[in-house]
């Protein structure tokens, strides 16, 4: 017999046995399974998914971005995917293109040899790299995870990368061409905050703010300075604002918030008001944490707060999240956290979730509307997921 005939005969015998088994109540054999299946993801991502940026401080050459579903009942349902993100990376998800950007650093021999900085471009659906943009000059900033070390402007067409060597500058990338098109020097300033129709602002060491207008070729077409307006010693601005309707809300070490309108043609200094005016001064509530601000679609401002604030307490975990009506500058609610929090984020849907990285490095999920606790995401492979990004 030919091998085909053998298989055919075997198949008939197996089929006969199967019928026999079924007749006798013996369950059918499980079939052989395919060996080539790889998952893909729906794009846009469902609104309760989020990215957890794990810096993996003890192994920072192997940091990760975990894509998680805050609605999942257990880790199998929560864990959607992962991309590597090496060596103090910065991450941003495009709202327009089906792409993710990871600005990262590699050495030929992990921590030795030749250094190469790149922006790796990932496909949102396959989480596979589509390409990379090499960043010249070995100057990309290396710091704790920050929302403002990279930024997308011009409707997602340009990507900005903040550099620190310690000389500071901003690299401008054309996303469509995957090409570096300019580098803007920053005179003693830091970070990139999207500003204006197409540009960015940076906070400066002398307490001022500088803004640049950028054209579609990445060239600077306008430059504007808000003269020094805060005192780094007396009441420093956190460099971690929440953005609501074009206005950046910068909390300050002493418990104020400085509004800066970045949505207009030229950045405009707004009102400075107290976050703690209504609280007991003896309790010394202050803003603090790793990433301590958030905002939702309804225009509410969320700030992580701790009591007994003092010089040096500005990275303490928050025991509460205070929720403000940003426009009305009024306190709406104080949410007491189950476990103190280090960083917060809000999903972008109308009835958003409040996501809190707690001091055990797990993620607690609350309903934003009433502060009700929903669940904790833990054991998803994380070390220190210090920064969360709601999906776009």
């Amino acid at each position: 017999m030919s091998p085909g005939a053998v298989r055919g005969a075997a198949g008939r015998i197996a089929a006969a046995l199967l019928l026999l088994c079924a007749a006798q109540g013996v369950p059918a054999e499980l079939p052989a399974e395919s060996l080539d299946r790889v998952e893909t993801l729906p794009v846009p991502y469902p609104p309760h998914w989020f990215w957890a940026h794990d810096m993996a401080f003890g192994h920072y050459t192997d940091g990760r971005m975990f894509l998680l579903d805050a609605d999942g009942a257990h880790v199998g349902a929560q864990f959607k995917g992962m991309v590597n993100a090496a060596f103090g990376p910065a991450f941003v998800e495009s709202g327009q293109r089906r792409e993710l950007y990871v600005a990262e650093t590699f050495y030929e021999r992990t921590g030795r040899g030749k250094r190469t900085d790149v922006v790796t471009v990932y496909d949102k659906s396959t989480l596979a790299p589509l390409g990379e943009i090499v960043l010249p000059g070995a100057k990309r900033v290396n710091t704790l995870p920050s929302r403002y070390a990279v930024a997308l402007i011009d409707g997602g067409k340009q990507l900005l990368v903040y550099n620190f060597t310690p000389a500071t500058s901003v690299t401008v990338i054309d996303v469509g061409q995957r090409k570096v098109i300019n580098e803007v020097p920053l005179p003693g300033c830091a970070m990139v905050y999207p500003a204006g129709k197409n540009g960015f602002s940076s906070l400066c060491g002398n307490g001022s703010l500088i803004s640049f207008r950028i054209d579609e070729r990445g060239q600077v077409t306008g430059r504007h300075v808000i003269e020094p307006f805060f005192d780094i010693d007396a009441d420093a601005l956190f460099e971690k604002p929440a953005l609501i309707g074009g206005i950046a809300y910068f909390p300050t070490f002493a418990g104020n918030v400085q509004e800066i309108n970045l949505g207009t043609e030229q950045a405009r200094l707004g009102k400075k008001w107290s976050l703690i005016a209504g609280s007991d001064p003896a309790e010394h509530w202050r803003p603090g944490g790793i990433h301590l601000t958030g905002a939702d679609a309804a225009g509410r401002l969320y700030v992580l707060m701790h009591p007994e604030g003092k010089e040096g307490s500005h990275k303490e975990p928050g025991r509460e999240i205070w929720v403000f009506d940003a426009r009305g500058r009024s306190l709406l609610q104080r949410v007491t956290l189950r476990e103190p929090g280090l960083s917060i984020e809000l999903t972008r849907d109308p009835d958003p979730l409040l996501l809190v990285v707690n001091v055990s490095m797990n993620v607690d999920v609350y309903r934003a509307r009433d502060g009700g606790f929903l669940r904790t995401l833990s054991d998803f492979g994380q070390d220190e997921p210090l920064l969360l990004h709601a999906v776009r």
Partner: protein
Amino acid sequence: MARTLAQRTSRRSFIAAIGSALVGGAMLPLLPVARAAAAETARPKEDPGDPTQCGYWRNCAVDGYLCACCGGTTTSCPPGTEMSPTTWIGTCRNPADGRDYIISYNDCCGKTSCGACFCNRNEGDRPLYAPQRANDLNWCVGAKSLAYHCTVTVILGTAAGRT
């Protein structure tokens, strides 16, 4: 309080799975989160158990992260990884039908460790001189990248000679 914090904070890893050995059987769920996960969506009764648990029947010779916890399933790799064509093989008994199945443990490769649901069980595992039965090897050796992410558990068929 700081001390309490430090002690309370456990890192999922290896250690939990190693712990399984101490209770004398890997069929017990290991971690608080794993226990909580028992409420998973119902499985077909002919393939019983929770694939995110180390004790799931197909995992009898697995050594690594379970892809069902990493954005994949028992038989599919997570997004952006590649299923290695080279594998080691286990023979695991399905409690639903009492049959012994040949399980191919394919590693999913091209990203570093998933980190979730580490599981180590060694039924039929043998030392490195018997590689086709050795789970200590990185089986991404057959993929484009040696980077190991997680492991799937694919049924190749029944171990006819053994049922």
